[in-house]
């Protein structure tokens, strides 16, 4: 189980906004996170991954403390090793599709399996610059799942995909998550796109 209780000031230009969240996610669950633009959804995911530190708070995963500002514990992102799909993809410009996956896994069979799920088998030697928006987004998803994460954080992961692609991709991901027992948090503002996938949801609102 993942339990989170954090508080972080968002430095908006005029005045200040506080991101204050307390939530718990069951192992293996898939949760949809939504809320208005600028509410702090991306920030929330980055705090969980260890990329941003909140002012106050505690994060623990299966009784292992990832973060506790009171005792000044904060595991590095490397130790937390969550599968993170960045909103802007953050692909590596120097690497081809194949190299992205080889960077995180040396299991050739696993890589092939992922390429098939993401429908990128024929693009293995393309660099991100030469991929379409949807191809880039699928690569970002594959790279994140390639590390076989226990926890997967996805920031608008399907925004560049057409409905058909989405409906073919999601079942593939779902079965991998089931296999790996992954807990998944998905930020999305498209009300329909996660229908049937997520059981629980969480709203983030600016305060």
């Amino acid at each position, binding site marked *: 189980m993942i339990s989170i209780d954090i508080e972080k000031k968002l430095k908006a230009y005029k005045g200040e906004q506080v991101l204050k969240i307390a939530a718990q996610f069951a192992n293996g669950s898939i949760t949809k996170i939504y809320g208005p633009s600028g509410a702090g959804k991306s920030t929330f995911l980055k705090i969980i*991954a260890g*990329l941003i530190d909140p002012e106050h708070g505690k994060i623990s995963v299966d009784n292992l403390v990832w973060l506790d500002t009171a005792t000044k514990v904060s595991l590095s992102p490397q130790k937390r090793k969550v599968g*993170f799909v960045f909103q802007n993809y953050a692909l590596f410009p*120097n690497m081809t599709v194949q190299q992205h996956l080889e960077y995180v896994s040396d299991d050739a069979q696993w890589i092939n399996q992922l390429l098939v799920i993401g429908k990128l088998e024929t693009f293995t*030697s393309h660099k991100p610059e030469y991929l379409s928006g949807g191809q880039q987004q699928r690569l970002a998803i594959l790279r994140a799942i390639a590390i076989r994460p226990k926890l997967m954080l996805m920031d608008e992961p399907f925004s560049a995909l057409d409905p058909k692609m989405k409906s073919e991709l999601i079942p593939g991901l779902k079965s991998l998550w089931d296999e790996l027992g992954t807990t998944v948090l998905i930020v999305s503002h498209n009300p329909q796109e996660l229908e049937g996938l997520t059981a629980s949801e969480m709203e983030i609102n600016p305060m």
Partner: protein
Amino acid sequence: MDLTPIWLTLKLAAIATVILLIIGLPLAYWLSKGRSIAKIILEAIITMPLVLPPSVLGFYLLMAFSPKHGIGEWLHNAFDIQLVFSFKGLILASVIYSMPFMIGPIKSALQQLPLSLSHASYTLGKSERETFIKILLPNIRASVLTAAILTFAHTLGEFGVVLMIGGNIPGVTRVASIAVYDSVENMDYASANAYSLILFGITFIMMVSVFVFNKYKAKSPLE
């Protein structure tokens, strides 16, 4: 014409460039992360040797390396290392002298990379070191290349420092730049031109092949 100085020079420039790559890359990385007063000062110190006329820098280094005092004495007594009038000394001097050309371009290029690249790599469980080598460096390849070429060329042409602490000993510290200098001093313009042409030629070929190789490598399957 005696070709030993040319070989010696190439050896010196190659070794200095390699050493500077090894120590310069991590140092540039460290300097590129955040800005503290300590880093600014260290950076200023690295740039300092540039500000001094080479012969004067050579003089200071001679003082520092001299087996008669300080560091030089200690090295001499403890390890029997003699830095003055030896090839080792030339290497050390070249490293000090050319360091800003290696550090500067790489550091500024690193600062201009988006943070999200390293963040993505960290979440994949990769250490800072691996991220630096496999993600950051390849994405500033052009700057690393520029830095290496500037360093190499500058070490080839370095002269004042080398003359002062190397002492123009044939086969040991008489590098090409000194040989050319001697020829000019001696009004033997034919040899001076010949040496210069060889240096030119080697650098030229080297640069062109690096660029061509790089162009080839950079070619995507789509082009």
